[in-house]
């Protein structure tokens, strides 16, 4: 316990950091999971949507600030940017590309999203350049809070303490309710479970797919927009985000919304503890967790084992 009392603040900081980090990762991973459910494609370009969401939020935010917009407007701008990116890119990508590939081999479908990733990555460099983009107005506006931790108090930004986890929790709650209790949500679940049967029941699977993809894209963009005030955006941020969300989705099990939240929390906390304890292993920890989970539960923490068909 001597170690804990000496390093209490570190543990507390790691906890808080992990929580806010997990929130952003969850937003991306849950969208990826939803999209995989209906399309059966692991969308490699999902990370690019995260990056574009972040960049768009930062540019719009900086532009609004240059026009003299009050700082509280920063938060709605983040949300608006995410919706904008999702609605602008989601239907286009789904309609023009993924829908055409639906009957092709899974390998080819995966590669289509890889091609899209390469294209979006360069487009993003052409639009926003390679210099880091920083937009931290919402972070500064909300200031810091002293979080009591034992006898100590840890100063932590209110943005990371309330906004990030708050939005993630709200997303989780809304998604869970929509999927369980609304007609549209039930249709999404139906298409996820069995596309053919759902169509036979009169569900417009194509419409459901487009809707889900758009929502997934908007969630990725929202993850990026929310993370934008806490990080500086650089090229390559999409590439590193997508592999992390892959780890979250595989750990959680495919098609699991709540599972994605738990896995994001596990991986987020694991990573932030690694940052404070053994920074060399920061990048390794998420995958170590994933490998450990898959070793004992090949279908993921919450995944349902598929019965083998003969």
């Amino acid at each position, binding site marked *: 316990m001597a170690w804990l009392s000496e390093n209490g603040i570190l543990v507390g900081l790691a906890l808080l950091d992990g929580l806010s980090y997990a929130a952003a990762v969850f937003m991306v991973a849950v969208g990826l999971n939803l999209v995989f459910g209906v399309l059966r494609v692991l969308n490699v370009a999902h990370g690019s949507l995260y990056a574009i969401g972040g960049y768009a939020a930062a540019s719009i935010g900086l532009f609004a600030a240059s026009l003299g917009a009050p700082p509280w407007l920063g938060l709605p701008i983040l949300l608006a940017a995410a919706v904008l990116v999702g609605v602008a890119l989601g239907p286009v990508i789904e309609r023009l590309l993924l829908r055409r590939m639906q009957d092709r081999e899974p390998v080819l479908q995966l590669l289509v999203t890889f091609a899209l990733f390469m294209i979006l990555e360069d487009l993003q460099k052409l639009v926003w350049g390679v210099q880091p983009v920083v937009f931290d107005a919402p972070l500064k506006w909300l200031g810091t809070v002293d979080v009591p931790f034992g006898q100590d108090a840890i100063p932590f930004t209110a943005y990371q303490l309330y906004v990030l986890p708050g939005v993630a929790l709200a997303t989780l709650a809304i998604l869970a309710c929509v999927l369980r209790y609304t007609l549209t949500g039930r249709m999404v679940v139906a298409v996820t479970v069995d596309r053919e049967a759902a169509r036979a029941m009169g569900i417009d699977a194509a419409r459901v797919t487009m809707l889900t993809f758009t929502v997934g894209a908007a969630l990725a963009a929202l993850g990026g927009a929310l993370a934008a005030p806490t990080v500086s955006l650089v090229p390559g941020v999409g590439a590193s985000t997508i592999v992390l969300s892959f780890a979250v989705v595989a750990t959680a099990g495919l098609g699991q919304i709540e599972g994605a939240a738990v896995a994001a929390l596990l991986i987020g906390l694991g990573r932030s503890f690694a940052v404070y304890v053994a920074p060399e292993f920061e*990048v*390794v920890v998420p995958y170590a967790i994933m490998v450990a989970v898959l070793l004992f539960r090949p279908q993921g923490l919450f995944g349902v084992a598929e019965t083998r068909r003969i």
Partner: protein
Amino acid sequence: MTRRSETLFALAGAVLILVLAYAVPWLRFVLTIALAKGLAVLGILLLLRAGQVSFGHALYLALAAYTVAFGAVLVPEALLLLPAAALLAGIVGLLIGLFVVRYREIFFGMLNLALSMVFYSVLEKFYALTHGADGIRLPPVTVLGRPLAGETGEWTVLGIALVLALACGALVRVALASPLGEALAGIKTRETRLDFMGVSPKRVLLAAYVASAVMAGFAGAIIALTTRHVTPALSYWTTSGELVFIAILGGAGSVLGPFLGAAAYELTRVYAAATFANAWQLVLGLVLLAVIVFAPGGIWGMITSRRRAA
């Protein structure tokens, strides 16, 4: 396409490579890299036959490249370093293979991805040993006691790559036509049937996996000897994606596909990088999309379908 015409194609290709390398000196470097990548893609082809996509074979590529870079300090003999690097890649492939062949499709791909990302961050973070993102310069290397440098050095590495490519190509061609190859295809169509016939799908996939690791090892060693500089980027997931990209670009139908694909890829990359310095990735992405949409059989598929039509 008969075995004889494929052999003729391969020999004609080899001659063409030598003529091009002689006529256009700067192509020597590009063609050596293309042959190396073709070797690695040959392994991807084996796994694709089983319907499995690895998004992590850059691990073996980078492992072998770093083995050459570190080993050259102790034993600066290329003809010893090359097999040693491939052997190490094979051993690591066996160990990892024992674990990953229990998984299929998305989980197989993601586990490979995760392990290669772990290796990537080890290379990047242990600065004292690996010089991080800067990478390591290769110390001078000899072939049969004579220094591997200058124009003769380039020709030597190209020759080694060409011999290895022909040998591995022939081996894979034989393997694919053997019961092992049929069993691999069986994993893709319906694995349970293999079980019923008393064939262990895991063991079949493991054999293919180890072979693919060895070939990626050869590729990594040749790349290290050609570029004389190894960096962690060799093990980043986009490098693995590139290998899968080349497999589809060249066509998964023949062992010639990987080499056609690799040559086309490297040449496109060189020209795209020269013409659109900031958007070569975008160009490659568009090429990949075009191939998937218009020529699903890849370059090899285009050649054979034209012959059939004629």
